[in-house]
């Protein structure tokens, strides 16, 4: 939950008025000026560690919303409930039993280890809520429009005008001198015409020209044709604006937490929605101030829109976030596939991830920095082969390689053989 704590001091001071408003809404009794930041911090820490998986401040989750709970319940009752709610229920407390029934008889963990001070801190936090939040200030976005800078085309026009002016002046001067009786010389254009006549008659230049032309054409054609089907940089619009930066970057979720098939299978696997729901059952909205800057046009997507993106998961998986239950109306997400290998090329993730220990980023690039995922590598055969030729096989502790590697190293006279020497360059290893 790093993005929750992602607020700079500057933004906090800048937006104290917003904080005031927020806190005011949560609680009428506490004045914003009175907030004890230390206590709030301690409470928040405890809340996040112990309560956040089932409770939220402002809405129902597995358990009830806790914002302003002190107004609704006695402090003593709360302490009893928190320390051991089962005991409280067993004692026949009507309120406790009512809550238990209301939340589908789900047992709340007992927290006998929390001191009175701890509980008070937590309750303090639930009362004052979060300090800060809100969108980042203008220093967050970069302005791309250069100020007070003439457009480039104007410079070119001016330069052309100057040249034309010089030519006119030169011509005028020449005409004047001719009028004065100087011998008539062929003009600039006339000289060019003569030169052109010469070129037209020169066979050597013809040959040179043809060769040169052919080379250029071949180069361009070759370059173009080789790019056909190479989709490096392919960044399609996905049905859900999923940011790898927020998940893998900011929150440091392991790649293979979601792409768990990568270590077992040829496919890395797109996580099924139940994997998303492991976290998003509780995270129905992004933290205040989270934003995604889209590559295209630099559009900034803020909290309101991002929350709608999370809501899309709920829609697909059939999760009613108000009732907190699955409806059974599921609708699979149709992601747009980014990394497309042709059918005739076989690639196996587990070979690279599990056996070779290649980092995902080696082929997929800095995914943790990508707001929107794109194809980082060309995925051409040359690109594969290059890596196979350069990479030494890491065989430590893998008994499979023990014998064959020793033999091969002896054969090639090297200490460590490359993948290509191991046979990783043979056609049939990838084409079948």
């Amino acid at each position: 939950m790093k993005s929750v704590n992602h607020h700079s001091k500057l933004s906090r001071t800048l937006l104290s008025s917003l904080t005031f408003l927020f806190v005011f809404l949560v609680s009428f009794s506490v004045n914003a000026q009175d907030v004890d930041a230390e206590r709030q911090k301690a409470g928040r820490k405890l809340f996040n560690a112990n309560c956040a998986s089932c409770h939220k401040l402002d809405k129902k989750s597995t358990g009830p919303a806790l914002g302003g709970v002190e107004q609704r319940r006695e402090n003593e009752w709360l302490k009893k409930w928190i320390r051991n709610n089962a005991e409280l229920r067993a004692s026949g407390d009507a309120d406790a039993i009512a809550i238990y029934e209301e939340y589908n008889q789900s047992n709340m963990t007992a927290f006998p280890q929390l001191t009175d001070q701890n509980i008070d801190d937590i309750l303090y936090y639930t009362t004052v809520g979060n300090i800060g939040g809100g969108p980042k200030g203008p220093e967050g976005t970069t302005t791309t429009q250069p100020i007070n800078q003439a457009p480039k085309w104007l410079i070119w026009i001016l330069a052309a005008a100057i040249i034309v002016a010089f030519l006119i002046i030169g011509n005028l001067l020449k005409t004047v001198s001719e009028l004065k009786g100087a011998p008539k010389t062929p003009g600039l254009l006339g000289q060019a015409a003569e030169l052109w006549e010469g070129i037209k008659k020169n066979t050597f230049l013809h040959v040179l020209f043809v060769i040169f032309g052919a080379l250029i054409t071949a180069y361009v054609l070759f370059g173009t044709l080789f790019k056909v089907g190479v989709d490096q940089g392919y960044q399609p619009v996905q049905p859900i604006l999923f940011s790898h930066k927020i998940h893998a970057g900011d929150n440091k979720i392991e790649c293979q937490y979601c792409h768990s098939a990568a270590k077992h299978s040829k496919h890395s696997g797109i996580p099924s929605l139940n994997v998303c729901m492991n976290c998003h059952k509780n995270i129905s909205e992004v933290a205040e101030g989270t934003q995604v800057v889209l590559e295209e046009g630099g559009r900034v997507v803020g909290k309101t829109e991002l929350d709608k993106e999370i809501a899309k998961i709920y829609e697909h998986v059939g999760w009613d976030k108000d009732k907190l239950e699955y409806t059974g109306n599921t609708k699979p997400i149709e992601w747009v596939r980014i990394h497309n290998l042709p059918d005739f090329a076989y690639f196996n993730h587990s070979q690279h991830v599990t056996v070779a220990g290649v980092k995902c980023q080696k082929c997929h690039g800095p995914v943790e920095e990508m707001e929107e995922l794109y194809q980082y590598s060309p995925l051409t055969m040359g690109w594969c082969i290059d890596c196979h030729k350069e990479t030494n096989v890491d065989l430590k502790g893998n008994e499979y390689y023990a014998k064959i590697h020793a033999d091969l190293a002896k054969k090639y006279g090297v200490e460590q053989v490359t993948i290509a020497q191991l046979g990783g360059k043979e056609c049939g290893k990838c084409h079948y």
Partner: protein
Amino acid sequence: MASNKKYWQSVEELNDSSVVETLRNTEFVQEIPTDEFLGDKETLEGSSTSRRDFLKYVGFSTAAASLAACEGPVRKSIPYVVQPNDIVVGVADWYATTIADGFDFANVLVKTREGRPIQVMPNKEAGGVTNARTQASVLSLYDSDLRVKEPRKGEAQITWADADKEIVAKLESLKNANALVYLMTGTLASPSTEKVVADFVAKYPNVKHVTYDAVSESGTADAFEAMYGMRALPNYDFSKAEVIASIGADFLGDWQGGYEKSYAEGRRADTGKMSYHVQIESNMSLSGANADKRIVAKPSIQVNALIKLFNAITGQNITTENTPIDAQINKLAQDLKKAGSKGVVVTGINDKNAQMVALAINKALNSEVIDTEAVNLTRQGSDAKVAELVSDIQSGKAKGLVTYNVNPAYSLTGFGEAIKKLDLSVAISTQDDATANATQFTLPAPHNLESWGDVMATAGKYSLVQPTIAPLFNSRQFQDVLLKWSGAEKNYYDTLKEFWSTNVLNGASWNQALHDGFFMAPVVETTESTEETSNEENVSGTVNVNAAANELAKVKSTQFELTLYTSTALGDGKQANNPWLQELPDPITRASWDNYLTMSMADAKELGFTNPVKDNGAIDGNYAKVTVNGVEVTVPVIIQPGQAKGSLGLALGYGRTQGLKKEMQVGVNAYPLYVDNKNVQYNVSVEKVGGTHKFACIQVQSTLAGRHDILREATLKEVNDKSLDPKHTWNQPFMVSYDHQETEATDKKVDLWDDHDRSLGHHFNLSIDLTSCTGCGACVVACHAENNVPVVGKDEVRVGRDMHWLRIDRYYSSTVEDKQYAEGVAMTMDEFKAQNPNIPNKDIERRYTEKVLELSKGDLFDALENPAENPEVTFQPMMCQHCNHAPCETVCPVAATSHGRQGQNQMAYNRCVGTRYCANNCPYRVRRFNWFNYADNKEFDFNMNNEYGKMVLNPDVVVRSRGVMEKCSMCIQMTQATILKAKKEGRAVKADEFSTACSQACSTGAMVFGDVNNEKDTVAKLKEDRRAFYVLDYIGTKPNVVYQVKVRNTNEA
């Protein structure tokens, strides 16, 4: 000996060698049929497309294609919403289940990918054996054309609830009226289902359950019941046999389920012991093809032979006529007597008397081979009961009929019409077949691979059936339907579990049984008292047997006798809409997409039937009108070497039309000739009628190119004689002269190429034992499934464009020896050899033929014709040999085919430009050119052209596009997967861990795959075996497929 054998592929080679010559010259010339459209002047002139327009179109389409290529298609990736626990995307799961469709029963393992079954393999732990049909059953699962998708009443769709309500109401009213209702099923062999049926019958006492086997073994069951007091078939363990006498029983084919596994176990040449198998038959069957001695006899003579054996062994004296094969039968009787309890007699005649005689012979021999306790329960039908059912339904005595996965409207003449008169008719059926279309209600039943269930094919061995995919259509299991109608609360799954825990498991774990796919019930020791009673029965049995034999002896020979058989591909015809099976060539005739009348060469000559060969390798045939008991059927004729004179053969299971794809509506329905469920019909008349039939027969398409020494054979005596050095006698490598020294052609010195270093890493070899290969074709279908081999259809097969990566070549062989001696020639070959010591061994025969016998090559074949009346048969599975010095690799202009370090000849389809040079240069004829896009092409409307059929494709192997060459890859995707598994687990590859689809599918153990650099792999030893040889070794290709010499037990001391 071996050198006197001549191998040939077809009768045409013998009759008219010029055709073969032409074929050889045109084998690779496949001209573009320009004449077809250019030659037709009218059409050409009538066309509105001028040359100018044509060029415009070409230009436009080129431009459009290049533009289209710039923009890649958008591909979607759709993950699960909730991923099932046991599925990792891209990793196959295997489930143990059982195939039981009433005809084929097998313990199998099913490979599933992302919840889709894609392959069926034998469950070897459970002793499972798969044949071509069980292998192909996974494709029938996805048969969206033939499967029933929704419950129907007449033509109209109906909900299950409504159907239940209406049918139960009707059943109740019939029950109240005490009107007879038949429940007609195939052999269920399912203990729990039988209980469900019994409960249903208890609820509706007016219901009578009748088991109907389309291809009946009722004669055996009747005989067994008479002698042993239990209605079942005896089981056989041919691995214990020393002498096997089979009279018309194709026990390596479909006879009583097939016994190829134990048969092959009893014929391991390396142990020095082999059973001696004598087959007396009229059609050339798989068993006959594998037999050590094949005695050709038409059915009436077979009956005679059976009685003679009975006389000789039991000492009875039933009078029979004398026949030409008497001497051979007497010899066989002596052999059997000598073998005693190690001898066995089986007969395929579906007749109670004949079967009783056979059982009595086995009893007299005290045969260990036959098992009368752990009996075979795979055919439970009774001809008498079926006959009663048919007459009750036709007479109107029965008012209702419920069928389950049987198709009597197709296999019983006139039954479809009779059904329509009934008050209630319901078909619970997987297939929307003729019966399902004749009944009032049609209820979809799930496919075997979508069902729960249990099977007891052999008494005492319980097998479980579990679903490997969620039902594709709105189906409900037969058992669930009956439970519902009986008003039971529980569903079938719970009933099954309860049944197992109370009756089967005896406290053992259900989950373990489900995991294993089978459960062996503890053997119950038979008490003495039961033995005594069985002895009493035996006494009474002996009396009956004499009567039976006397009855049997009344069979009189007629001019033509027809034997109806089931083909290796289609069996009883249940899977007739399965393109893999339709395209599977018959192991003997090598014809696919057809059934036909097989006829002996002599009869064909007499009646004027021919099989002319076209110069593109296609075979034509004439039609014959066959009349049995007043029923006429017109079928094409194939002349079959080894067919008994006066006998005819015809396969059942073809000629289905209802619900089948047009391409699959091939052949002729032979069931109308299957009068009284007798597989042998006497008093048959044949008459030639007009018309030419076009066969899709691949037998002459790949010529031998004059290399008639493609096989090696030896006798058991030779192999057992340790004093013989095989290299100089029965497994002689080809010798060449090198530096004036006789050197083996495979020697390194002789080689044109430098040798690769093959000692590093893995080096894969496949060993194929020609002795164990029965030609069953399971490997061919397994290869289709594993490697996404396309089906091309009848017309393409006809012109030699079949795509089989693995084919099983069938060679006939006969010996010219006799002829030479008989004609009193100037000298024998041995003498000739002694006089001309300079002539190399391989040439001796040719020179001898030319010089001494003064025969040309064509004449030599003529000399072979007589022996061809009963040729020996050898099967040789042939696929890419993965030559270490591959001729195909050197001729490829784009290096699309290259050699891997692990021994595989690799084919990079994306690199191939389709010159076909490689195919032309391949001496083994194993490369297949992909002429068309077979996927997504309406012209080839098979499984790769519809959404359901595509689900069977193996996602690890590419579907090839048109214009590329393809061939066996030695299942490189499987070897790579095995290696990856070992790497991931950080260990060396275990012994015999590598496998290919064909080696996995092989039930007899003829195909063994492995790494020869791993000493512990079986194949490493097989490669060095005395019997090992390479096909066409003298070409110097150094193949990685090694064959084991075919050994025949000639029964010499």
